[in-house]
């Protein structure tokens, strides 16, 4: 079974600085999708960024980018120019095809003003 591991239960960063959240996963598949979701106190899960495993180029969405290392099964999220509104729980997730998402345990990100 696929598993996703986030080894950092909590992270903090100064406003305007850069922070990297770690994620590793285990799968025997070659085609799959990886996601980072943000969950603010409102509980709503919001997609931050996604990566298709067949693409070598790392995905980027404005201040958010990933470092996807397929051989190492690593998928870290970099947040540049951190803003107060970035404070939330961040979940890394794996999906094979149009199936269920498998989530990591989450990382709580605090932004210090």
């Amino acid at each position, binding site marked *: 079974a696929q598993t996703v591991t986030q080894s950092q239960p909590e992270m903090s960063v100064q406003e305007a600085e850069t922070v990297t959240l770690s994620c590793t996963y285990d799968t025997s598949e070659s085609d799959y*999708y990886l*996601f980072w*979701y943000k969950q603010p106190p*409102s*509980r*709503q*899960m*919001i*997609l931050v960024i*996604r990566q*298709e495993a067949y693409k070598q180029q790392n995905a980027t969405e404005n201040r958010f980018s990933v470092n996807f290392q397929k051989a190492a099964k690593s998928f870290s999220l970099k947040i540049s120019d951190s803003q107060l509104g970035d404070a939330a729980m961040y*979940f890394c997730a794996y999906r094979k*095809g*149009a*199936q*269920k*998402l*498998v*989530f*990591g*345990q*989450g990382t709580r990100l605090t932004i210090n003003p």
Partner: protein
Amino acid sequence: GAGVSQSPSNKVTEKGKDVELRCDPISGHTALYWYRQSLGQGLEFLIYFQGNSAPDKSGLPSDRFSAERTGGSVSTLTIQRTQQEDSAVYLCASSTTGVMETQYFGPGTRLLVL
């Protein structure tokens, strides 16, 4: 357009009672997923509906849990004879068909079993 909606937002019930949780997916989304988020177990998959296909029930934790999706749209998750360990946030997500499609989540229902 409107996002995924869930009701109620919060539900408090007594142990042994039955509860029904509702999910309205985004219009046109053929796939619907239920997940549970609890302190001890994190985020876990419960059930998945895709069009008229038989649902994937592999994540349901016990036979007290069931779900249906009427008319390919609204879904109801039912928990019978609730237990304290059922206390959690129940999240619903929907997506269009296709392996590339993103799952969009609702705000969840927080269930507390006393």
